[in-house]
């Protein structure tokens, strides 16, 4: 077994710290700023997990995944703001509509494979972005985004003192998505997904309908992404057009590659780290740390995409498997050394 025997107890301890941290009278977890940053990071970790189901487990390189994330956020916001629905009807409706959207987009895109599939999903995602940013039907408020009406959201999610509830909400969403992805990838269908990734022809010869299983993975990932979108609406307070941007999907790809595709925890860790890193790098930009450097160096360095992009190129070219891959390689080496010294092979 490559799993370290203490990894699960440690994870439990970490979750316990996260759960009780905001209630304590000391520690950084009681600061609303930290809570907010971590809440956003948890949601991106969860979103990266859904992308890992597509890319890491099923081998579908989709560039339109952000569409469903944005759909969850925007449909919820529109139903609450414009149609005055209560949130507990709005969110399930948004998730169902997004699932239907995923079925439609998925069945059209899955007529193509591989790189063509990437291009087609990119085009669909961009269509969604256009619809949102052009203020189609005067529902989305265009480039400014759609702030959620604070009066129609449960009071515990409003205000700086209540940030800890948003933090717990995001943590709960992350745990829920993790459990859902774990359940899906361990299920018989999940094994078919991996079989399709590894050798589609062989899986088809066994009598499995490749397109139908890929569509299933696409719809599960899209539906979960819309749940995360609705949570992001509450955490950030508005639905922004950049949620539907191709750059959001590219960021998801970066998170999954950074953490390591197809390992679940790698994607979650990659998403959380990426989200925190891009917030921190932006702060660095505003700070004075780079002011002493000439503009030809400080200019690119002040863009988070520069450092993250370089890291991404490095991982793709020299360290495939990302963080989790590196961890498993180290673990393998350690276990082998253990065996050779004790001589109990």
């Amino acid at each position, binding site marked *: 077994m490559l799993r370290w025997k203490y990894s699960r107890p440690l994870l439990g301890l970490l979750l316990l710290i996260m759960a009780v941290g905001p209630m304590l009278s000391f520690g950084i977890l009681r600061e609303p700023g930290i809570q907010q940053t971590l809440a956003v990071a948890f949601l991106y970790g969860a979103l990266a997990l859904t992308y890992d189901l597509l890319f890491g487990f099923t081998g579908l390189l989709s560039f339109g995944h952000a569409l469903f994330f944005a759909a969850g956020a925007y449909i919820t916001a529109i139903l609450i703001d414009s149609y005055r629905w209560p949130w507990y009807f709005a969110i399930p409706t948004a998730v169902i509509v997004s699932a239907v959207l995923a079925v439609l987009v998925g069945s059209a895109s899955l007529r*193509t494979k591989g*790189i063509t599939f990437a291009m087609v999903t990119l*085009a669909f995602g961009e269509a969604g972005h256009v619809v949102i940013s052009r203020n189609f039907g005067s529902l989305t408020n265009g480039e400014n985004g759609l702030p959620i009406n604070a009066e129609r959201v449960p009071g515990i999610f409003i205000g700086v003192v209540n940030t800890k509830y948003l933090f717990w909400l995001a943590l709960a969403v992350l745990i829920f998505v993790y459990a859902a992805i774990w359940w899906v990838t361990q299920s018989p269908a999940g094994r078919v997904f991996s079989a399709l990734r590894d050798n589609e022809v062989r899986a088809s010869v066994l009598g499995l309908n490749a397109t139908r299983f890929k569509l299933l993975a696409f719809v599960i990932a899209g539906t979960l992404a819309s749940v995360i979108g609705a949570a992001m609406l509450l955490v950030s307070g508005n639905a922004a057009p950049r949620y539907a941007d191709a750059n959001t999907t590219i960021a998801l790809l970066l998170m999954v590659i950074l953490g390591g595709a197809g390992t679940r925890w790698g994607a979650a860790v990659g998403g959380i780290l990426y989200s925190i890193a891009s917030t921190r790098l932006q702060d660095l930009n505003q700070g004075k740390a780079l002011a002493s450097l000439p503009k030809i160096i400080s*200019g690119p360095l002040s*863009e988070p995409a520069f450092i*993250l992009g370089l890291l*991404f190129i490095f991982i*793709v*070219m020299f360290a495939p498997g990302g963080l989790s891959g590196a961890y498993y390689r180290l673990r393998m080496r350690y276990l082998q050394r253990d065996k050779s010294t004790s001589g109990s092979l």
Partner: protein
Amino acid sequence: MDTFILITITGIGLGALFFLVASGLSLIYGLMGVLNFAHGTFLVVGAFSGLWISTKVFATANTWTFLGAMVFGGIAGGIFALIVERLVITRLYERHIEQALVTVGVALVAGATLSGWFGNDPRLLPTPHWFINTVTVGKAFVPVDRFLYIGASIVLYIVLASILRFTRIGLIIRAGVENRAMVGALGINVRLAFSAVFFMGGFAAGLGGVLVGAYQNGVTPLMSGSWLIYGFIVVVVGGMGSLGGSALAALLIGVVDQFTNYYMPGLGDFVIVFLLAAVLLTRPQGLLGKVGR
């Protein structure tokens, strides 16, 4: 009628710009199987090089300096494409998903570098004074710059098609698109053809960048994204690896976009994606693409 003529010619002009972006993407994909996300960056590199030479070297704007800027932008885009191909893409030989991923990284890094150096505000590209003129076609007053875009694309199409048709490297490229493994097995250096295709694609995109800068009244690093996506759509609709398919699809999409935006403002992009879905559902290989690719 005059509106019809105006929109048609404007649409063809826009299609000409789409073609400049899509032709390289299509050839690169057709020969190497690389989905090149860095192609939008080639466009921006060309646009900024054209801007640099027009403002810093020529300092005046007439027909010849603009043509010079176009060629210079094209060469800069081509050289940048060659560097990208040599430095990162050839190292991931035959690993198509990784190649696509690494071009995403290149696009991020190059985009961030350009944003860091020049900022994201559009910079005005000097154009000859006749750019604002119109000519009368039938009864329509058509902006004259549209004809420049169309002319440049036609010349580029003829040059690219001639290279593919009549030269040895073109022969290797065409054979490579059909069956790369066989070409390699015959002892022919396919790598050289890869570099040639990247240079040609980068040249077309760089030249297109200068023209897009004139068309949009400004050069900014942000233009890589939207034009790249149009390029992808054109390539998918036209058929991967087919130069003629790209030209046809670019024309179709340019004209459809302009007509939709005239009669239903703001819906042009939406209708294009609808068109893409329709083509995929009826002809997944694209208009002129080969089956089974």
